[in-house]
Protein backbone atom coordinates (compact mmCIF):
# COMPACT_ATOMS: atom_id res chain seq x y z
CA UNK A 1 0.00 0.00 0.00
CA UNK A 2 2.68 2.50 0.98
CA UNK A 3 4.70 2.09 -2.19
CA UNK A 4 1.55 2.73 -4.18
CA UNK A 5 0.84 5.84 -2.18
CA UNK A 6 4.35 7.01 -2.70
CA UNK A 7 4.09 6.27 -6.40
CA UNK A 8 0.98 8.39 -6.46
CA UNK A 9 2.99 11.10 -4.78
CA UNK A 10 5.67 10.94 -7.40
CA UNK A 11 3.21 10.87 -10.24
CA UNK A 12 1.68 13.94 -8.73
CA UNK A 13 5.11 15.50 -8.75
CA UNK A 14 5.40 14.60 -12.43
CA UNK A 15 1.98 15.76 -13.41
CA UNK A 16 1.33 18.84 -11.39
CA UNK A 17 4.49 20.70 -10.46
CA UNK A 18 2.70 23.99 -10.87
CA UNK A 19 0.70 23.28 -7.72
CA UNK A 20 3.80 23.28 -5.55
CA UNK A 21 4.87 26.27 -3.55
CA UNK A 22 8.06 28.13 -4.36
CA UNK A 23 11.12 26.61 -2.77
CA UNK A 24 11.61 28.16 0.69
CA UNK A 25 15.20 26.88 0.70
CA UNK A 26 16.52 28.25 -2.58
CA UNK A 27 20.08 28.23 -1.37
CA UNK A 28 20.02 24.62 -0.32
CA UNK A 29 20.51 22.95 -3.71
CA UNK A 30 20.32 23.52 -7.43
CA UNK A 31 17.27 21.27 -7.50
CA UNK A 32 15.31 20.58 -4.38
CA UNK A 33 11.71 19.40 -4.87
CA UNK A 34 9.73 17.97 -1.98
CA UNK A 35 6.62 15.83 -2.23
CA UNK A 36 4.40 15.18 0.79
CA UNK A 37 1.77 12.48 0.68
CA UNK A 38 1.41 12.69 -3.06
CA UNK A 39 1.30 16.45 -3.20
CA UNK A 40 4.26 18.47 -4.45
CA UNK A 41 5.06 20.75 -1.56
CA UNK A 42 7.98 22.75 -2.87
CA UNK A 43 8.76 22.70 -6.59
CA UNK A 44 12.49 23.27 -6.19
CA UNK A 45 13.56 23.38 -9.88
CA UNK A 46 12.62 19.74 -10.40
CA UNK A 47 13.12 19.75 -14.18
CA UNK A 48 16.59 21.22 -14.42
CA UNK A 49 19.18 18.92 -16.05
CA UNK A 50 21.79 17.88 -13.52
CA UNK A 51 24.49 15.26 -13.24
CA UNK A 52 23.03 12.30 -11.32
CA UNK A 53 26.31 11.04 -9.85
CA UNK A 54 25.77 7.83 -7.87
CA UNK A 55 22.01 8.19 -8.02
CA UNK A 56 22.55 6.45 -11.36
CA UNK A 57 23.26 3.33 -9.33
CA UNK A 58 19.56 3.19 -8.55
CA UNK A 59 18.93 2.27 -12.17
CA UNK A 60 21.77 -0.23 -12.11
CA UNK A 61 20.34 -1.81 -8.98
CA UNK A 62 16.95 -2.14 -10.61
CA UNK A 63 18.51 -3.93 -13.60
CA UNK A 64 20.53 -6.27 -11.38
CA UNK A 65 17.42 -7.16 -9.44
CA UNK A 66 15.45 -7.75 -12.60
CA UNK A 67 18.28 -9.89 -14.03
CA UNK A 68 17.91 -12.22 -11.05
CA UNK A 69 20.44 -14.96 -10.11
CA UNK A 70 21.53 -12.93 -7.12
CA UNK A 71 23.29 -15.90 -5.54
CA UNK A 72 25.61 -16.14 -8.51
CA UNK A 73 29.26 -15.57 -7.69
CA UNK A 74 30.76 -12.69 -9.65
CA UNK A 75 34.47 -12.49 -10.27
CA UNK A 76 35.92 -9.04 -9.75
CA UNK A 77 37.93 -7.81 -12.70
CA UNK A 78 41.07 -5.72 -12.46
CA UNK A 79 39.29 -2.70 -13.84
CA UNK A 80 36.43 -3.07 -11.36
CA UNK A 81 38.89 -3.44 -8.51
CA UNK A 82 40.60 -0.26 -9.65
CA UNK A 83 37.44 1.83 -9.43
CA UNK A 84 37.87 5.22 -7.79
CA UNK A 85 35.82 6.97 -5.19
CA UNK A 86 33.73 5.06 -2.68
CA UNK A 87 34.72 1.41 -2.78
CA UNK A 88 34.71 -1.81 -0.85
CA UNK A 89 38.32 -2.53 -1.53
CA UNK A 90 37.79 -5.64 -3.62
CA UNK A 91 40.76 -7.31 -5.22
CA UNK A 92 40.94 -8.55 -8.77
CA UNK A 93 40.00 -12.19 -8.96
CA UNK A 94 37.95 -12.21 -5.78
CA UNK A 95 34.49 -13.64 -6.06
CA UNK A 96 31.46 -12.08 -4.42
CA UNK A 97 27.78 -13.05 -4.62
CA UNK A 98 25.75 -10.69 -6.77
CA UNK A 99 23.49 -9.86 -3.84
CA UNK A 100 26.54 -8.78 -1.83
CA UNK A 101 27.73 -6.54 -4.62
CA UNK A 102 24.24 -5.12 -4.94
CA UNK A 103 24.14 -4.32 -1.24
CA UNK A 104 27.55 -2.65 -1.35
CA UNK A 105 26.55 -0.64 -4.41
CA UNK A 106 23.31 0.62 -2.92
CA UNK A 107 24.24 1.08 0.73
CA UNK A 108 27.86 2.14 0.49
CA UNK A 109 27.76 3.40 -3.11
CA UNK A 110 30.76 1.15 -3.70
CA UNK A 111 32.08 1.68 -7.22
CA UNK A 112 34.15 -1.52 -7.37
CA UNK A 113 31.00 -3.50 -6.60
CA UNK A 114 29.04 -1.46 -9.13
CA UNK A 115 31.52 -2.08 -11.94
CA UNK A 116 31.74 -5.75 -11.09
CA UNK A 117 27.99 -6.00 -11.55
CA UNK A 118 28.04 -3.90 -14.73
CA UNK A 119 30.67 -6.23 -16.23
CA UNK A 120 28.64 -9.29 -15.34
CA UNK A 121 26.34 -9.10 -18.38
CA UNK A 122 28.10 -7.74 -21.44
CA UNK A 123 30.32 -5.05 -19.91
CA UNK A 124 29.84 -1.42 -18.83
CA UNK A 125 28.82 0.00 -22.24
CA UNK A 126 26.12 -2.63 -22.71
CA UNK A 127 24.99 -2.07 -19.13
CA UNK A 128 24.65 1.67 -19.73
CA UNK A 129 22.64 0.96 -22.89
CA UNK A 130 20.30 -1.21 -20.87
CA UNK A 131 20.04 1.50 -18.23
CA UNK A 132 18.91 4.00 -20.85
CA UNK A 133 16.48 1.55 -22.37
CA UNK A 134 14.97 0.86 -18.97
CA UNK A 135 14.78 4.59 -18.27
CA UNK A 136 12.77 5.00 -21.43
CA UNK A 137 10.34 2.27 -20.44
CA UNK A 138 9.90 3.99 -17.07
CA UNK A 139 9.09 7.24 -18.85
CA UNK A 140 12.18 9.05 -17.59
CA UNK A 141 12.35 11.26 -20.66
CA UNK A 142 14.81 13.74 -19.16
CA UNK A 143 17.39 11.14 -18.21
CA UNK A 144 20.43 9.91 -20.10
CA UNK A 145 23.06 7.70 -18.50
CA UNK A 146 26.68 7.66 -19.62
CA UNK A 147 28.37 5.65 -16.89
CA UNK A 148 27.01 2.56 -15.09
CA UNK A 149 27.96 3.93 -11.70
CA UNK A 150 27.27 7.63 -12.25
CA UNK A 151 30.77 8.98 -12.77
CA UNK A 152 30.63 12.22 -14.67
CA UNK A 153 30.32 11.49 -18.37
CA UNK A 154 29.55 13.56 -21.42
CA UNK A 155 25.89 13.54 -22.28
CA UNK A 156 24.86 12.13 -18.92
CA UNK A 157 22.07 13.98 -17.15
CA UNK A 158 18.84 13.60 -15.32
CA UNK A 159 16.41 15.73 -13.37
CA UNK A 160 15.17 15.68 -9.81
CA UNK A 161 11.79 14.81 -11.23
CA UNK A 162 13.03 11.72 -13.08
CA UNK A 163 15.29 10.61 -10.26
CA UNK A 164 12.42 10.86 -7.83
CA UNK A 165 10.41 8.52 -10.01
CA UNK A 166 13.33 6.16 -10.26
CA UNK A 167 13.79 6.22 -6.51
CA UNK A 168 10.17 5.38 -6.10
CA UNK A 169 10.58 2.41 -8.41
CA UNK A 170 13.38 1.25 -6.14
CA UNK A 171 11.25 1.66 -3.04
CA UNK A 172 8.55 -0.46 -4.63
CA UNK A 173 10.95 -3.41 -4.73
CA UNK A 174 10.98 -4.92 -1.22
CA UNK A 175 14.51 -6.28 -1.57
CA UNK A 176 15.92 -2.96 -2.66
CA UNK A 177 13.84 -0.93 -0.24
CA UNK A 178 15.12 -3.07 2.61
CA UNK A 179 18.71 -2.52 1.54
CA UNK A 180 18.57 1.26 1.24
CA UNK A 181 16.95 1.44 4.68
CA UNK A 182 19.81 -0.39 6.41
CA UNK A 183 22.36 1.48 8.51
CA UNK A 184 24.96 -1.06 7.67
CA UNK A 185 25.33 -4.25 5.66
CA UNK A 186 27.86 -7.04 5.73
CA UNK A 187 29.37 -8.23 2.45
CA UNK A 188 31.57 -11.31 2.18
CA UNK A 189 33.82 -12.63 -0.53
CA UNK A 190 33.46 -16.31 -1.52
CA UNK A 191 33.96 -18.65 1.40
CA UNK A 192 33.78 -15.63 3.68
CA UNK A 193 37.45 -15.16 3.05
CA UNK A 194 36.99 -11.45 3.66
CA UNK A 195 34.18 -9.59 5.32
CA UNK A 196 33.26 -5.97 4.74
CA UNK A 197 31.00 -3.92 6.94
CA UNK A 198 29.48 -1.25 4.76
CA UNK A 199 27.92 1.80 6.35
CA UNK A 200 25.08 3.53 4.62
CA UNK A 201 26.30 6.64 2.85
CA UNK A 202 22.89 8.18 3.54
CA UNK A 203 23.66 9.24 7.08
CA UNK A 204 20.10 10.43 7.62
CA UNK A 205 19.18 6.78 8.02
CA UNK A 206 21.09 6.87 11.29
CA UNK A 207 20.49 10.41 12.42
CA UNK A 208 17.03 11.43 11.28
CA UNK A 209 14.24 9.36 12.80
CA UNK A 210 11.82 8.38 10.07
CA UNK A 211 14.16 8.30 7.08
CA UNK A 212 13.78 4.91 5.39
CA UNK A 213 15.92 5.34 2.20
CA UNK A 214 17.19 5.98 -0.47
CA UNK A 215 20.62 7.11 -1.92
CA UNK A 216 23.44 9.62 -2.06
CA UNK A 217 25.66 10.77 -4.91
CA UNK A 218 28.67 13.00 -5.35
CA UNK A 219 30.86 13.95 -8.27
CA UNK A 220 32.69 17.09 -9.23
CA UNK A 221 30.07 17.97 -11.80
CA UNK A 222 27.06 16.97 -9.72
CA UNK A 223 28.14 18.24 -6.35
CA UNK A 224 26.31 16.61 -3.47
CA UNK A 225 23.15 14.74 -4.40
CA UNK A 226 20.62 13.07 -2.18
CA UNK A 227 17.26 11.39 -2.39
CA UNK A 228 15.66 10.73 0.98
CA UNK A 229 12.33 9.19 1.82
CA UNK A 230 10.94 9.75 5.30
CA UNK A 231 7.85 8.54 7.05
CA UNK A 232 6.46 9.80 10.33
CA UNK A 233 2.99 9.61 11.80
CA UNK A 234 1.56 8.38 8.52
CA UNK A 235 3.11 11.27 6.60
CA UNK A 236 5.46 10.43 3.74
CA UNK A 237 8.01 12.92 2.47
CA UNK A 238 10.28 12.51 -0.52
CA UNK A 239 13.16 14.96 -0.80
CA UNK A 240 15.48 15.23 -3.77
CA UNK A 241 18.54 17.45 -3.56
CA UNK A 242 20.81 17.83 -6.57
CA UNK A 243 23.85 20.03 -6.19
CA UNK A 244 23.26 20.52 -2.49
CA UNK A 245 25.44 23.04 -0.73
CA UNK A 246 25.19 21.77 2.81
CA UNK A 247 23.44 18.51 2.13
CA UNK A 248 22.89 16.99 5.53
CA UNK A 249 22.07 20.00 7.65
CA UNK A 250 19.71 21.32 5.01
CA UNK A 251 18.11 17.93 4.39
CA UNK A 252 17.55 17.58 8.13
CA UNK A 253 15.84 20.95 8.36
CA UNK A 254 13.79 20.51 5.20
CA UNK A 255 12.57 17.04 6.14
CA UNK A 256 11.69 18.19 9.65
CA UNK A 257 9.67 21.03 8.24
CA UNK A 258 7.98 18.97 5.55
CA UNK A 259 7.03 16.22 7.99
CA UNK A 260 5.32 18.74 10.23
CA UNK A 261 3.64 20.85 7.61
Amino acid at each position, binding site marked *: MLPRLALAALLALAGAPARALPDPFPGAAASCPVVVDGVPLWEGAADVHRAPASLAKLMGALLVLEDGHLDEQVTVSASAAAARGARLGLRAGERVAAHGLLAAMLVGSANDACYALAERRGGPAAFVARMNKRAATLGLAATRFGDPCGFDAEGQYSTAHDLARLAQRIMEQPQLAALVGRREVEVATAGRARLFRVKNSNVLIE*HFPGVIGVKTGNTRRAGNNLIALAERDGRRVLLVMLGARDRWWDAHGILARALER
Partner: protein
Amino acid sequence: MHAVTRILSAALAVAAAALAHAQGGPDELWNMSTRMEMAGMPGQTFTNEVCMKKGQTQPDKMSQDKNCKVAEMRTVGNKTTWKIECAGRDPMTGEGEMTRTRNSMDGRMRMQGKRGNETFDMTTVISGRLAGGCTWEDPAKKAQAMVAAGTAQMAQMCSESMDKYTTILFEGENALCKAQKPEYCARVTKVSQSMRSPAGYRKAMSQEGLRGEGWGQAAQACGVQTESIMADACRGAVSGRDWAFVGEHCPAETTKIAAEQCAGRNYTAAMSSEYGEFCGRYASRKGRESAAAADKQQDAAPAAPSAADAVKEGANQLRRLFGR
Protein backbone atom coordinates in the same frame (compact mmCIF):
# COMPACT_ATOMS: atom_id res chain seq x y z
CA MET B 1 -55.79 30.13 47.89
CA HIS B 2 -55.03 31.68 51.22
CA ALA B 3 -57.97 29.93 52.78
CA VAL B 4 -56.97 26.60 51.35
CA THR B 5 -53.43 27.02 52.55
CA ARG B 6 -54.66 27.99 55.94
CA ILE B 7 -56.93 24.98 56.10
CA LEU B 8 -54.16 22.65 55.02
CA SER B 9 -51.83 24.20 57.55
CA ALA B 10 -54.35 23.91 60.26
CA ALA B 11 -55.11 20.34 59.38
CA LEU B 12 -51.50 19.30 59.43
CA ALA B 13 -50.76 21.32 62.52
CA VAL B 14 -53.50 19.60 64.37
CA ALA B 15 -52.48 16.26 63.00
CA ALA B 16 -48.96 16.88 64.20
CA ALA B 17 -50.22 18.00 67.52
CA ALA B 18 -52.25 14.87 67.71
CA LEU B 19 -49.27 12.80 66.85
CA ALA B 20 -47.06 14.50 69.31
CA HIS B 21 -49.70 14.25 71.92
CA ALA B 22 -50.31 10.61 71.28
CA GLN B 23 -46.73 9.52 70.97
CA GLY B 24 -43.68 11.32 72.31
CA GLY B 25 -41.33 9.04 70.37
CA PRO B 26 -38.13 9.62 68.34
CA ASP B 27 -37.99 11.68 65.12
CA GLU B 28 -40.39 10.18 62.66
CA LEU B 29 -40.99 10.56 58.99
CA TRP B 30 -44.59 10.53 57.94
CA ASN B 31 -46.14 10.32 54.53
CA MET B 32 -49.13 12.58 54.75
CA SER B 33 -52.08 12.69 52.39
CA THR B 34 -54.65 15.45 52.67
CA ARG B 35 -57.81 15.52 50.62
CA MET B 36 -59.94 18.65 50.57
CA GLU B 37 -63.59 18.48 49.66
CA MET B 38 -65.84 21.46 49.12
CA ALA B 39 -69.36 21.58 47.75
CA GLY B 40 -69.41 22.32 44.02
CA MET B 41 -65.72 21.76 43.57
CA PRO B 42 -63.65 18.74 42.60
CA GLY B 43 -61.70 17.28 45.46
CA GLN B 44 -57.96 17.90 45.69
CA THR B 45 -55.40 15.66 47.26
CA PHE B 46 -52.02 16.83 48.52
CA THR B 47 -49.20 14.57 49.65
CA ASN B 48 -46.00 15.38 51.42
CA GLU B 49 -43.43 14.05 53.83
CA VAL B 50 -43.16 15.52 57.28
CA CYS B 51 -40.35 14.98 59.73
CA MET B 52 -41.43 15.63 63.27
CA LYS B 53 -39.09 15.60 66.16
CA LYS B 54 -39.80 14.26 69.51
CA GLY B 55 -42.07 16.63 71.37
CA GLN B 56 -42.93 18.72 68.36
CA THR B 57 -46.46 20.01 68.45
CA GLN B 58 -46.74 21.09 64.86
CA PRO B 59 -44.78 20.87 61.64
CA ASP B 60 -42.25 23.66 61.10
CA LYS B 61 -43.97 25.30 58.20
CA MET B 62 -47.29 25.54 60.09
CA SER B 63 -45.91 27.48 62.96
CA GLN B 64 -46.07 30.74 61.08
CA ASP B 65 -49.85 31.07 61.11
CA LYS B 66 -50.27 32.72 64.47
CA ASN B 67 -53.93 33.56 63.84
CA CYS B 68 -55.06 29.99 64.27
CA LYS B 69 -55.66 28.63 67.73
CA VAL B 70 -56.45 25.05 68.61
CA ALA B 71 -58.77 24.61 71.50
CA GLU B 72 -60.51 21.85 73.36
CA MET B 73 -58.08 19.23 72.28
CA ARG B 74 -58.95 15.97 73.97
CA THR B 75 -57.53 12.52 73.64
CA VAL B 76 -59.40 9.46 74.63
CA GLY B 77 -57.66 6.23 73.87
CA ASN B 78 -56.13 6.61 70.48
CA LYS B 79 -58.60 9.24 69.33
CA THR B 80 -58.04 12.97 69.53
CA THR B 81 -60.66 15.63 68.93
CA TRP B 82 -60.23 19.37 68.76
CA LYS B 83 -61.67 22.65 67.76
CA ILE B 84 -59.86 25.36 65.86
CA GLU B 85 -60.49 29.01 65.28
CA CYS B 86 -58.64 31.25 62.83
CA ALA B 87 -58.92 35.02 62.88
CA GLY B 88 -57.69 37.66 60.46
CA ARG B 89 -58.15 37.39 56.76
CA ASP B 90 -60.49 34.51 55.76
CA PRO B 91 -61.66 33.88 59.34
CA MET B 92 -62.91 30.40 59.97
CA THR B 93 -63.79 27.91 62.63
CA GLY B 94 -63.65 24.19 62.59
CA GLU B 95 -63.52 20.90 64.40
CA GLY B 96 -61.83 17.67 63.77
CA GLU B 97 -60.85 14.28 64.95
CA MET B 98 -57.90 12.01 64.44
CA THR B 99 -57.44 8.37 65.23
CA ARG B 100 -54.01 6.97 65.22
CA THR B 101 -52.09 3.84 65.78
CA ARG B 102 -48.38 3.42 66.10
CA ASN B 103 -47.95 3.50 62.32
CA SER B 104 -50.95 5.36 61.01
CA MET B 105 -53.33 8.20 61.52
CA ASP B 106 -56.68 8.88 59.94
CA GLY B 107 -59.01 11.74 60.59
CA ARG B 108 -61.01 14.60 59.22
CA MET B 109 -61.62 18.24 59.92
CA ARG B 110 -64.45 20.48 58.90
CA MET B 111 -63.88 24.19 58.49
CA GLN B 112 -66.43 26.85 57.88
CA GLY B 113 -65.85 30.50 57.26
CA LYS B 114 -66.02 33.50 55.02
CA ARG B 115 -63.98 34.40 52.08
CA GLY B 116 -64.84 37.83 50.93
CA ASN B 117 -68.59 37.91 50.74
CA GLU B 118 -68.92 34.20 50.29
CA THR B 119 -69.15 31.52 52.89
CA PHE B 120 -67.49 28.21 52.51
CA ASP B 121 -67.69 24.79 54.07
CA MET B 122 -64.77 22.51 53.57
CA THR B 123 -63.94 19.08 54.81
CA THR B 124 -60.39 17.86 54.93
CA VAL B 125 -59.64 14.18 55.11
CA ILE B 126 -56.23 13.44 56.57
CA SER B 127 -54.35 10.19 56.26
CA GLY B 128 -50.81 9.52 57.43
CA ARG B 129 -48.50 6.53 57.34
CA LEU B 130 -45.24 6.20 59.23
CA ALA B 131 -42.54 5.93 56.61
CA GLY B 132 -39.47 5.58 58.83
CA GLY B 133 -37.07 7.61 60.88
CA CYS B 134 -35.67 11.00 60.19
CA THR B 135 -33.46 13.59 61.76
CA TRP B 136 -35.22 16.74 62.51
CA GLU B 137 -33.26 19.85 61.86
CA ASP B 138 -33.74 23.34 63.13
CA PRO B 139 -34.33 25.48 60.04
CA ALA B 140 -32.11 28.25 61.35
CA LYS B 141 -29.31 25.85 62.09
CA LYS B 142 -29.89 24.22 58.76
CA ALA B 143 -29.36 27.54 57.01
CA GLN B 144 -26.22 28.12 59.06
CA ALA B 145 -24.98 24.68 58.12
CA MET B 146 -25.58 25.41 54.46
CA VAL B 147 -23.61 28.61 54.69
CA ALA B 148 -20.85 26.78 56.50
CA ALA B 149 -20.87 24.05 53.86
CA GLY B 150 -20.69 26.65 51.12
CA THR B 151 -17.77 28.32 52.85
CA ALA B 152 -16.03 24.99 53.25
CA GLN B 153 -16.60 24.16 49.61
CA MET B 154 -15.18 27.48 48.57
CA ALA B 155 -12.18 26.93 50.80
CA GLN B 156 -11.68 23.51 49.29
CA MET B 157 -11.97 24.89 45.77
CA CYS B 158 -9.40 27.57 46.53
CA SER B 159 -7.10 25.01 48.06
CA GLU B 160 -7.38 22.78 45.03
CA SER B 161 -6.87 25.75 42.75
CA MET B 162 -3.63 26.48 44.58
CA ASP B 163 -2.48 22.97 43.91
CA LYS B 164 -3.44 23.34 40.27
CA TYR B 165 -2.02 26.86 39.92
CA THR B 166 -5.30 28.23 38.61
CA THR B 167 -4.15 31.82 38.74
CA ILE B 168 -7.39 33.28 37.45
CA LEU B 169 -9.15 32.42 40.72
CA PHE B 170 -6.66 34.48 42.74
CA GLU B 171 -6.02 37.38 40.43
CA GLY B 172 -8.26 40.47 40.21
CA GLU B 173 -10.68 42.41 42.35
CA ASN B 174 -13.51 39.94 41.93
CA ALA B 175 -11.47 36.77 42.13
CA LEU B 176 -13.23 34.03 44.04
CA CYS B 177 -10.11 33.21 46.02
CA LYS B 178 -8.80 36.74 46.37
CA ALA B 179 -8.40 36.33 50.11
CA GLN B 180 -5.99 33.47 49.57
CA LYS B 181 -3.82 35.32 47.10
CA PRO B 182 -0.96 35.94 49.57
CA GLU B 183 -0.81 32.24 50.32
CA TYR B 184 -1.04 31.45 46.61
CA CYS B 185 1.76 33.81 45.74
CA ALA B 186 3.93 32.41 48.50
CA ARG B 187 3.49 29.04 46.91
CA VAL B 188 4.20 30.38 43.40
CA THR B 189 7.32 32.09 44.67
CA LYS B 190 8.52 28.94 46.38
CA VAL B 191 7.99 26.71 43.36
CA SER B 192 9.57 29.32 41.10
CA GLN B 193 12.71 29.37 43.25
CA SER B 194 12.89 25.60 42.94
CA MET B 195 13.10 26.00 39.16
CA ARG B 196 16.57 27.49 39.17
CA SER B 197 18.01 24.13 38.12
CA PRO B 198 17.01 21.90 35.19
CA ALA B 199 15.93 19.14 37.56
CA GLY B 200 13.86 21.57 39.62
CA TYR B 201 12.35 23.06 36.52
CA ARG B 202 11.36 19.67 35.16
CA LYS B 203 9.94 18.62 38.52
CA ALA B 204 7.87 21.79 38.76
CA MET B 205 6.70 21.41 35.20
CA SER B 206 5.46 17.93 35.95
CA GLN B 207 2.56 19.78 37.58
CA GLU B 208 -0.03 20.34 34.93
CA GLY B 209 -1.03 23.81 36.05
CA LEU B 210 2.46 25.19 35.50
CA ARG B 211 2.83 23.89 31.97
CA GLY B 212 2.25 25.97 28.89
CA GLU B 213 1.40 29.47 29.95
CA GLY B 214 0.64 28.38 33.51
CA TRP B 215 3.89 29.32 35.18
CA GLY B 216 4.19 32.60 33.29
CA GLN B 217 0.70 33.66 34.33
CA ALA B 218 1.23 32.67 37.94
CA ALA B 219 4.60 34.41 38.08
CA GLN B 220 3.21 37.58 36.55
CA ALA B 221 0.29 37.65 38.97
CA CYS B 222 2.67 37.28 41.89
CA GLY B 223 5.45 39.52 40.66
CA VAL B 224 7.97 36.72 40.22
CA GLN B 225 10.71 37.46 37.69
CA THR B 226 11.02 34.38 35.46
CA GLU B 227 14.00 35.69 33.49
CA SER B 228 16.51 35.38 36.30
CA ILE B 229 15.16 31.95 37.21
CA MET B 230 15.53 30.68 33.66
CA ALA B 231 18.98 32.24 33.41
CA ASP B 232 20.05 30.21 36.44
CA ALA B 233 18.42 27.05 35.09
CA CYS B 234 20.18 27.50 31.76
CA ARG B 235 23.53 28.09 33.43
CA GLY B 236 22.96 24.88 35.34
CA ALA B 237 22.01 23.06 32.15
CA VAL B 238 25.16 24.17 30.38
CA SER B 239 27.42 23.26 33.28
CA GLY B 240 25.62 19.94 33.61
CA ARG B 241 25.79 19.36 29.84
CA ASP B 242 22.04 18.95 29.75
CA TRP B 243 21.76 19.80 26.06
CA ALA B 244 18.16 18.69 25.75
CA PHE B 245 17.21 21.32 28.33
CA VAL B 246 19.35 23.95 26.67
CA GLY B 247 17.87 23.25 23.27
CA GLU B 248 14.35 23.50 24.60
CA HIS B 249 14.52 26.37 27.05
CA CYS B 250 17.65 28.44 26.53
CA PRO B 251 17.66 30.33 23.24
CA ALA B 252 20.76 32.39 23.95
CA GLU B 253 22.83 29.38 24.96
CA THR B 254 21.39 27.39 22.06
CA THR B 255 22.63 29.87 19.51
CA LYS B 256 26.09 29.89 21.04
CA ILE B 257 26.39 26.12 21.34
CA ALA B 258 24.87 25.49 17.93
CA ALA B 259 27.48 27.78 16.43
CA GLU B 260 30.22 25.82 18.10
CA GLN B 261 28.91 22.28 17.92
CA CYS B 262 26.48 22.12 14.98
CA ALA B 263 26.78 24.81 12.33
CA GLY B 264 29.81 24.46 10.15
CA ARG B 265 30.68 21.17 11.74
CA ASN B 266 30.45 17.87 9.88
CA TYR B 267 26.89 16.64 10.20
CA THR B 268 27.78 13.06 10.99
CA ALA B 269 30.37 14.06 13.56
CA ALA B 270 28.01 16.50 15.23
CA MET B 271 25.09 14.11 15.21
CA SER B 272 27.22 11.31 16.61
CA SER B 273 28.50 13.47 19.44
CA GLU B 274 26.86 14.25 22.75
CA TYR B 275 25.29 17.22 20.98
CA GLY B 276 23.52 14.97 18.47
CA GLU B 277 20.00 15.40 19.79
CA PHE B 278 20.62 19.07 20.41
CA CYS B 279 21.93 19.64 16.89
CA GLY B 280 19.08 17.65 15.38
CA ARG B 281 16.54 19.77 17.19
CA TYR B 282 18.36 22.89 16.22
CA ALA B 283 18.51 21.94 12.54
CA SER B 284 14.83 21.04 12.60
CA ARG B 285 13.93 24.33 14.21
CA LYS B 286 15.98 26.27 11.72
CA GLY B 287 14.23 24.40 8.91
CA ARG B 288 10.91 25.37 10.35
CA GLU B 289 11.95 28.96 10.81
CA SER B 290 13.29 29.21 7.28
CA ALA B 291 10.09 27.79 5.83
CA ALA B 292 7.97 30.02 8.01
CA ALA B 293 9.94 33.06 6.93
CA ALA B 294 9.53 32.00 3.30
CA ASP B 295 5.80 31.59 3.78
CA LYS B 296 5.57 35.13 5.10
CA GLN B 297 7.71 36.56 2.37
CA GLN B 298 6.32 34.44 -0.41
CA ASP B 299 5.41 37.46 -2.46
CA ALA B 300 8.40 39.50 -1.43
CA ALA B 301 11.59 39.52 -3.43
CA PRO B 302 14.28 38.36 -1.00
CA ALA B 303 14.38 34.58 -0.71
CA ALA B 304 14.53 32.87 2.64
CA PRO B 305 17.84 31.36 3.66
CA SER B 306 18.43 27.66 3.77
CA ALA B 307 18.44 25.85 7.08
CA ALA B 308 22.23 25.79 7.01
CA ASP B 309 22.27 29.46 6.12
CA ALA B 310 20.13 30.17 9.12
CA VAL B 311 22.37 28.11 11.38
CA LYS B 312 25.46 29.82 10.06
CA GLU B 313 23.93 33.25 10.24
CA GLY B 314 23.09 32.60 13.86
CA ALA B 315 26.65 31.52 14.44
CA ASN B 316 28.01 34.59 12.69
CA GLN B 317 25.81 36.88 14.69
CA LEU B 318 27.02 35.23 17.81
CA ARG B 319 30.63 35.48 16.81
CA ARG B 320 30.13 39.17 16.16
CA LEU B 321 28.44 39.46 19.51
CA PHE B 322 31.27 37.73 21.34
CA GLY B 323 33.98 39.15 19.13
CA ARG B 324 35.16 35.76 17.92
